[in-house]
């Protein structure tokens, strides 16, 4: 088992003809992901040339792509100016999961796009996230496939490359993964730590979870409380940014709303107080997982 994506994932790539979109579509196809359609307005009717002579039909709209292929998931590589609209188009097309890779989407546009997806019961991952990989099953996004392996560990992270780091360590230690999820580092993200923890708790194949956070916000603190209240499986944590200097802050609004400075110390404390083993170095993460599973 896995969470969010698996062998039955039928993927549409929005922005399939762009530089990043085409590169990563090939990588996803090479990994065995069922890429059933691409969408690039104005290029409907053309074909995308994938690896091994495989081709993917291109459509003008998500509506047509889903109608023709029965896709259930989309991934978005379109430029920031069009990404929020692409998310809403996907959310209206019938897919159940929208993975938004694009970085730099205006936050106010995302507030509307997230509301739009919520209205329709569609899950968004990201934006500004590396995506998901369920090793041996499917990959949606940009996570490098060569570092993952099948196994019992669920990984969820706010960071992109730091996730790769942790997964790389796990794999090197022989600890494969059920699913690795990069939830993204933007202020407004569609799927958060708690959503993923809940899914990992419900997934019978996941035996332990790695949660990688960073400074800013209070998502990690809420996730820690969730772990204590609802998780039976061991969770190992890491927080990046212990040495980050305090920023020059403008205004009081941020502090008033969160009641928190969002420091690494706060988050490490929240993890430890709620039974989450915290790694000091990225290299220690895999060892703590191994110990938890022993």
């Amino acid at each position: 088992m896995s969470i969010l994506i698996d062998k039955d994932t039928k993927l549409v790539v929005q922005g399939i003809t762009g530089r990043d979109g085409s590169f990563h579509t090939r990588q996803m196809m090479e990994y065995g992901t069922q890429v059933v359609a691409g969408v690039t307005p104005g290029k409907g009717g053309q074909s995308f040339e994938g690896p091994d002579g495989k081709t993917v039909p291109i459509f003008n709209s998500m509506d047509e792509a889903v109608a023709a292929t029965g896709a259930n998931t989309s991934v978005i590589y379109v430029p920031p100016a069009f990404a929020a609209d692409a998310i809403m188009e996907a959310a209206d097309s019938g897919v159940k999961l929208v993975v938004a890779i694009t970085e730099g989407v205006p936050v106010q546009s995302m507030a509307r796009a997230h509301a739009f997806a919520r209205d329709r019961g569609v899950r968004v991952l990201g934006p500004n996230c590396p995506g998901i990989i369920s090793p041996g099953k499917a990959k949606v996004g940009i996570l490098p496939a060569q570092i993952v392996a099948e196994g019992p560990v669920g990984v969820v992270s706010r960071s992109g490359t730091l996730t790769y780091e942790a997964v790389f360590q796990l794999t090197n230690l022989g600890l494969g993964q059920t699913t690795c999820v990069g939830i993204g580092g933007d202020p407004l993200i569609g799927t958060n730590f708690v959503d993923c923890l809940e899914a990992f708790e419900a997934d019978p194949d996941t035996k332990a979870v790695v949660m990688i956070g960073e400074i800013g916000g209070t998502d990690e603190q809420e996730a820690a409380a969730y772990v204590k209240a609802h998780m039976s499986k061991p969770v190992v944590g890491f927080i990046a940014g212990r040495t980050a200097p305090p920023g020059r802050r403008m205004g009081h609004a941020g502090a008033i709303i969160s009641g928190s400075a969002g420091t690494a110390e706060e988050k490490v404390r929240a993890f430890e107080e709620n039974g989450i083993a915290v790694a000091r170095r990225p290299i220690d993460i895999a060892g703590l997982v191994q110990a938890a599973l022993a």
Partner: protein
Amino acid sequence: MNIHEYQAKERFRAAGIPVPPGEVATTPEEVEAIARSIGGMVVVKAQVHSGGRGKAGGVKLAKNPEEAREHASRILGMEIKGLKVTKVFVTPAEDIATEAYVGVLVDRKSQCPTFMVSSEGGIDIEEVAATKPEAIRKLKVDPRYGMLPHQAYWLANTLYDDPALVKQGAKVIGQLYTSFVDSGASMAEINPLISTKAGEVKAIDAKMSIDDSELFRRPEVAAMRDTSDEPWEETKARDAGLSFVKLDGNVGCCVNGAGLAMATMDLVKYYGGEPANFLDIGGSSNPDKVVAALEIITADPDVKVILFNIFGGITRCDDVANGIVEATKRIDIKLPIVIRLTGTNEEQGIKILADAGFSAFTSMDEVVQKAVELAKA
């Protein structure tokens, strides 16, 4: 992107918010002239991209133009939280009856623009929030509907008893939301929103942070960027599409991804070293970015070693490798460079580096230990 008080006031004024007049100046002479044309008591306020101006002595009341000039001569050139004051704003002193707080930002948790208002505004507002949370009224604005008139009124009702002031306050709150949206802001704040003894509501301070992702579609806001008070490295980094923060150590760090960059700094510290900077070269890296990153890092005389930590996902290792090779051709780098490169197109990247005479690590722990060791040598 943070904008100055005087710029935020321009945005507010355009949205109809009552803002007292005022002018910006860069010399004590200009300040004196402005104070003279205003007449009466004025306030001289440092324009700098940081809070805490008042406590740092950057805001002064002046009884007459001569005093305004004296204050300005002390404030101009002063440093506030590492930023040099190059501009001051001169504005009439107001006859303040009450000071309220009105702020709005995009809240991560509710995913909505969220207002906070309090009748107990002023510089101690954060203490009010911490110790008397009931004195703060909060409102989530549903982005599907925007700010509704009754919601602005509901917030303003907290601030005043007098219906005439409530009406003015509600209007300002609605206008602040309009300005927040139209500016592509992530935060906008009036503290204090005063009422005068004559019964007028006015914004006498203004803060606004703009969402960087909004600037491409708002050239008039993007034009408000003022880099005169920030270190040149930050300006150069931004222009190159990099994220950079100067620190006090000697290990120059060049990493892809903010999380990995922070983890790298943490690990440098863990092994007894001191990072010289935070630097995220971001996704889809191209050689020009690496060149700019190296120029910024090598300009710091304290730096003893350059540490690359690259884990390729959307950033391809071959791009970064090409960038490093290209950059080292363009700039004469005398410092040792240690490189960790793994992930997407790792083999091609390592081959490019190998062909150019560099050798690359694949372990983050090893490369950081090596860098700290070289920095101490």
